[in-house]
């Protein structure tokens, strides 16, 4: 493969504290050098990044690719293309497929399929329990051997506290994170954040305490066992507090939040893109099922707490929880509609617009939460990801921070067109994506490129 020189961009790499105009040279799939005056090797392919930002490729800890079993919602191929369009060069594939990924053979199958597609790196996660049934521990060590980067029964919480204790304890053998979907089932019998909006709409609510109580339980079990605990898609101020305290105690606890929980509120359910007055009469746009997600979009006070936690580093990573669904899945009433937002292709622009442009978050911190933050959650298996240090994987993304664009789900590469952002104008666009030194996405051709120009 020809070496790749990305020339003249503003390189922002929080893993090494770099924010300067520089060239990046990738050779044999690895970063060779980052510097202000690199001469391209003779045969090198040169990408001109003048006026663009160059970051390490984004790492998504939480992606639902739906294959095997629900290919009508997404396949590894469509999901991986959506990933690189969104700047994600690595996606961790959630194992709640059909069948769930709970054997080494299935892990192998997902990994191979990802490699064959050859776009984003697809890192499989394995189930915590056999069949994702929440009863018996899956063969975690075998799954680790097969290449999983962590364990999760996501889609459902590990409700049984003893199973959670065992998983955390046993996983110390392997050192991979246990990723729990936090939701106390007895408290979480609703479809929307418990509050004014849900009450107004007559929808059963999920109190923030459903999440916070399970986060507290898991942290207590983490302290008991020493296992590495990663809290998936946290959404409440209370959870932020318990994570903050756990980190202060030095426990091996990490947390992620999604772009939609960081940027949107339950007011979006009213159908006015969060902009209507809370007391205004409901319009026929109310009950927007594109906003139905689990955990639910919370109120502004929770969103603000998440933003603060991201700023302070209490939240380690932004993860999309990309949950593609078919149109029919979202078509019925709010109660019937499937939970989930197709998030890969809007994640960066939504966060950049709402958090950086409007929210004053340092850009560097956003990049950190999309790159080295999630890579660190993966520990050893995240080594070489989310960074442009010499020796790291040659994954990078080119961003045009000035470009404004309007979200049109019909143009998503993902089969999941389910987004509350349809028609919303965002700022900041992914214009190119490189994985292992190969250009896999080029906005000018709007298709995966075999290694052309930018």
């Amino acid at each position: 493969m020809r070496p790749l020189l990305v020339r003249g961009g503003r390189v922002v790499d929080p893993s090494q504290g770099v924010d300067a105009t520089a060239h990046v040279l990738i050779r044999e799939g690895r970063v060779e050098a980052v510097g202000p005056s690199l001469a391209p090797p003779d045969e090198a392919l040169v990408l001109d990044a003048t006026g663009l930002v160059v970051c390490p490729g984004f790492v998504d800890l939480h992606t639902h690719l739906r294959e095997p079993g629900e290919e009508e919602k997404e396949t590894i191929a469509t999901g991986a293309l959506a990933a690189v369009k969104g700047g994600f060069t690595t996606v961790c594939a959630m194992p709640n497929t059909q069948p769930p990924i709970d054997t080494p053979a299935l892990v192998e199958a997902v990994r191979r399929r990802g490699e064959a597609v050859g776009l984003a790196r697809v890192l499989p996660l394995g189930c915590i329990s056999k069949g994702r049934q929440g009863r018996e521990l899956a063969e975690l060590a075998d799954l680790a051997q097969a290449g999983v980067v962590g364990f999760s029964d996501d889609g459902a919480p590990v409700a049984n506290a003893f199973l959670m204790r065992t998983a955390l304890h046993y996983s110390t053998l392997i050192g991979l994170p246990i990723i729990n979907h936090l939701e106390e089932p007895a408290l979480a019998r609703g479809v929307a954040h418990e509050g004014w909006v849900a009450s107004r709409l007559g929808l059963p609510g999920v109190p923030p305490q459903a999440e916070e109580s399970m986060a507290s339980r898991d942290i207590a079990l983490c302290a008991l066992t020493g296992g590495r605990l990663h809290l998936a898609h946290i959404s409440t101020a209370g959870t932020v507090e318990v994570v903050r305290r756990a980190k202060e105690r030095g426990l091996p606890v990490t947390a992620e939040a999604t772009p939609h929980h960081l940027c949107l509120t339950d007011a979006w359910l009213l159908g006015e893109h969060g902009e209507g007055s809370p007391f205004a009469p409901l319009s026929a746009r109310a009950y927007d099922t594109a906003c139905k997600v689990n955990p639910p979009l919370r109120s502004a006070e929770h969103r603000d707490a998440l933003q603060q936690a991201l700023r302070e580093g209490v939240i380690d990573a932004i993860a999309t929880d990309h949950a593609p669904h078919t149109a029919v899945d979202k078509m019925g009433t709010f109660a019937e509609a499937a939970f989930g937002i197709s998030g890969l292709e809007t994640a960066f622009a939504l966060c950049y617009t709402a958090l950086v442009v409007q929210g004053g978050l340092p850009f560097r911190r956003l990049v950190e939460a999309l790159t080295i933050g999630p890579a660190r959650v993966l520990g050893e298996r995240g080594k070489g990801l989310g960074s442009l240090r010499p020796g790291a994987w040659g994954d990078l993304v080119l961003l045009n921070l000035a470009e404004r664009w309007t979200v049109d789900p019909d143009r998503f590469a993902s089969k999941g067109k389910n987004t509350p952002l349809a028609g919303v104008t965002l700022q900041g666009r992914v214009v190119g994506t490189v994985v292992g030194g190969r250009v896999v996405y080029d906005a000018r051709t709007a298709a995966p490129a075999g290694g052309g120009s930018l």
Partner: protein
Amino acid sequence: MQKVETTPARRKAGSASVPWPHRHILDLDTFAPQEISLVLDLATSMKEVLGREVKKLPSLRGKTVITCFYEPSTRTRISFETAGKLLSADVINMQATGSSVEKGESLVDTLLTLQATACDVLVLRHPHAGAPYLAARWLGRTSVINAGDGTHAHPTQALLDLFTLREHLGTLEGRTIVIVGDIAHSRVARSNLWGMTKMGMRVVLCAPPTLLPWDLLKGRRETPGHPFASVEVETDLDKALEGADAVMALRLQKERMEAGLIPSLREYIALYQVNERRLLRARPGALVLHPGPMNEGVEISPAVAHGSQSVIQEQVTNGVAVRMALLYLLCMPAGGRP
């Protein structure tokens, strides 16, 4: 009991100039007080028709009304059907029960079919909150009337409650009503909250804390512009009833007990049943309402349900008049009022 005489002619004159902006009746949050008054005035005229020997009006000849009930409710369905027929509309009853309802896409499928039939009004009852909003989004020409959606709203019931109250009390403004029971899960109570507060009534909600919609009421005094700023909450029914002009008891669903929201029927009856002894605390002659169907002996004692202060049967008659008024307003182009 004494009815305050109203003069329909004057009322009509007073509200004839009120514009009618609604294509759908989804909930009362979208109604201005004058629009509520307009419906009640028109319903007064319709009620006169109900008292005639020949009850039929030709107004809606050639119009089609479809009632589509995904939840059984003989009372509401019959009321709409009667209202439509008395106005000479073609009323079609779509039975939407059974297994096809279980699938998520069934409602949209049904709506698409309806779209093709070019019906004028769809009366929709659905167990899921928001279903009529979905219908309003999908249907181009058809007006949608929400006949009850999940625990969200039941605007026509609220309007008939307001009609019944106004008929007896003469005016709604400043009157006190106590709504007692499972308010949190009652779409009737929710629509009434909008309607009654808009009409300037003093509303006192009374229920055990687990059956109160706290999120609807939270911050109501401190938050500027809160629609329920004036609503009062009282968990002691004896206190709540003090000086009330009317009391509305709500049906207690067995599920609430099964869900553990109240410990027992016995305790609920002891604390929250509207009975003769308690009714003495209200203003003499205070009205007793119930949206039905009643659990007599649970939320309301049989003596009160059938007593001289009860207007529960009248509510049924008034329901037809109010629904006639609504069908009329939705189907007739502005200006063509009787």
